[in-house]
C-alpha cells in the first residue's frame, strides 16, 4: 500500500498563499452603479463637476474636502401641501447595517424642490474606499429610492493608511507561516 503521494509537507503551503490572494479577487464585484428611481431628481456640483445619479455611472475621484452645491426635486402626486419624509444612509462595513447621516419629515410640506451648499471635510484615510450611500424620499403616491457608491480621491498609495496596512499584512502572513512551521 502506498502512502498518499499528494500529501507532501509543503505543497499546500505553497498553494495557500496564491489562493488567499486570488479568492477575494474572484469573489469581489464592481461597486454598484449610481441609480435613482421614481419621480425625483438629485444632483450635486463639486468643483464645477456635476454628479447626477440619473446620468452618471461612477462617482469616483471626488475631492476629500470642499463645497457641494446640491439640489433635489420631486414631482408630487398630491398637494402641496402633503406629508413628506426621507433619509440618507451610509452602509457600514460588511453590510452589517447602515448609519443615518440625514433625515427629514414634514407633515405639511409645500416645497417641491430644495437646494443648498454643504461644506465637507473628510479624513484622508477614507480615500480610495468605495462608500455606498442610499437615500429614500416618500410622500403620498411617491416613493423615490436612490443609491450611489462614492470614492474619495484616487485611493491606493494616496491613502496614508495603505503602506502601514500592506506592511502589517505582510507581517501577519509571515506570522501565519511561522505558526505553521513552529516547533519543527
Amino acid at each position, binding site marked *: *500500500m*502506498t*502512502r498518499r503521494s499528494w*500529501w507532501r*509537507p509543503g505543497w*499546500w*503551503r505553497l498553494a*495557500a498563499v496564491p489562493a*488567499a*490572494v486570488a*479568492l*477575494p*479577487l474572484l*469573489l*469581489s*464585484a464592481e*461597486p*454598484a452603479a449610481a441609480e435613482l428611481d421614481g419621480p425625483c431628481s438629485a444632483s450635486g456640483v463639486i468643483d464645477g463637476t456635476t454628479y447626477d445619479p440619473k446620468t452618471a455611472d461612477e462617482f*469616483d475621484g471626488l475631492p476629500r474636502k470642499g463645497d457641494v452645491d446640491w439640489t433635489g426635486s420631486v414631482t408630487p402626486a398630491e398637494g402641496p401641501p402633503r406629508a413628506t419624509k426621507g433619509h440618507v444612509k451610509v*452602509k*457600514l*462595513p*460588511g*453590510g*452589517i447595517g447602515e448609519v443615518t447621516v440625514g433625515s427629514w419629515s414634514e407633515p405639511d410640506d409645500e416645497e417641491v424642490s430644495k437646494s443648498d451648499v454643504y461644506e465637507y471635510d473628510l479624513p484622508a484615510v477614507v480615500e*480610495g*474606499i*468605495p*462608500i*455606498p450611500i442610499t437615500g429614500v424620499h416618500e410622500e403620498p403616491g411617491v416613493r423615490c429610492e436612490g443609491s450611489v*457608491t462614492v*470614492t474619495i480621491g484616487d*485611493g*491606493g498609495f494616496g*491613502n496614508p*493608511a*495603505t503602506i502601514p*496596512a*500592506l506592511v*502589517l*499584512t505582510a507581517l*501577519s*502572513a509571515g*506570522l*501565519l507561516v*511561522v*505558526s*505553521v*512551521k*513552529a*516547533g*519543527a
Partner: protein
Amino acid sequence: MMRKRGRPVVGAISGFFLGLLLAIDLLLFSVVALDSILVLVLPILGLVVGIALPLIARRSAAGATTPEVTRAGATPPPTGDYVAAAPPNDEAPDATTGAPGEPAPSS
C-alpha cells in the same frame, strides 16, 4: 524529543489579522465596496485557515515521525511507504530473543 509542529493559537490570531488586513487592502485599492461581504468573510476565513494550517502541519509532522518509532520496535507496525523501506527483519519480532532485528543466538 521532537516538538509538535504548528501553533493553532498563533495561527488563529495571525490568520484573523491577515484576513482583516487583506480586506482593508482591498478597500484601500477600491477593489471592493465598504458594504462588501468580503469585509466580514475574510477575517473569519483567515481565522479558520489560521487554525487549520498549523493543525494540518502538526498532523503531517506526526505522520512523518511514524517510521522512526516503528523502527525502534514500538507498535503500531509500519504502514505505507515505510513498509517497503523497512528491512525484512523488522516485519516481526524475533521469536527467540523477542527483539526485532537482532540475530538469533548461536547454539
